[in-house]
C-alpha cells in the first residue's frame, strides 16, 4: 500500500472510456453544465461539504 494514499485511483483503459455530462448549480445558484466547460480537461473534486 502506498504510504501517501489509502486508495489508489483508476486510470480508464482504452476502449472502456465512458462519456458523461451532467448539469448542477454553481455557487451563484446558476445552472452549470459540464459540456459547456470542456475547452480543456476538467478535474472535478468531490467534497464531503460544509467544511
Amino acid at each position, binding site marked *: *500500500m*502506498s*504510504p*501517501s*494514499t*489509502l*486508495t*489508489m*485511483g*483508476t*486510470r*480508464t483503459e482504452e476502449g472502456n*472510456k*465512458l*462519456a*458523461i*455530462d*451532467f*448539469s*448542477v*448549480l*454553481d*455557487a*451563484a*445558484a446558476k445552472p*452549470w453544465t*459540464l*459540456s459547456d*466547460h*470542456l*475547452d*480543456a*480537461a*476538467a*478535474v*472535478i*473534486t*468531490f*467534497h*464531503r*461539504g*460544509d*467544511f
Partner: protein
Amino acid sequence: MFGLSADSPGQNAAVMEKLALPFPILSDVERDLAITPLGFADENDPRLISRPGVVIISPDGEIVFRFVGKDYADRPDEDLVLEELGSLGLDPTSQEAAEHGPVEPGKTAIPGAGLEYYLSGAKFAALALRRRYRDISDDFKDGTKAYVAMVERYLEALKAVNERKA
C-alpha cells in the same frame, strides 16, 4: 478545476470565500445529478454527503481517471492527480476567476481561523492511535501514516490559503 458537493450554493460560496479558492464549487444537493450517478454517494453515511474523490474528464467528455474514497477521511493524493493529468499530454491552460453568490455558511462549518487547530488535532489524534495500536496490522499502520501525511499536506496548503488572503 471544479469542486462538487451536496451543499447548497450558499454553503459552497462560503467555502470558496473561506479558502480563497481560485475555482468554483458546484452544488448537487439531492446527489442525483452527479454524485450518485458517478458513484460518489456513501450509502453508509447518514449525513447524505459525497465520498471524497476526483474524476479527470478529457476534452471529449470521457472519464479518464477516477478516485473514489472509501470514506470521508480517504482522499486522493494531489501528486497522483497531477501525474494523471499530465499523462494526457494536453497544453497548459488557465481558468477564469471563480465567482459566487451570497455566502451562507452551514451551522457546523468550521470558521477559517479554526482550521489549523482542527487539522492539528486530527493529526495528533491519528498519531496517538497509531502508536497505541501499532501492533494491530500493517493496514492500520499504513492507513494512519497516510492520514497523517494527508493532514500535513493540508496544513501546508492552509499556509498558502492564508497567504492568498493576506
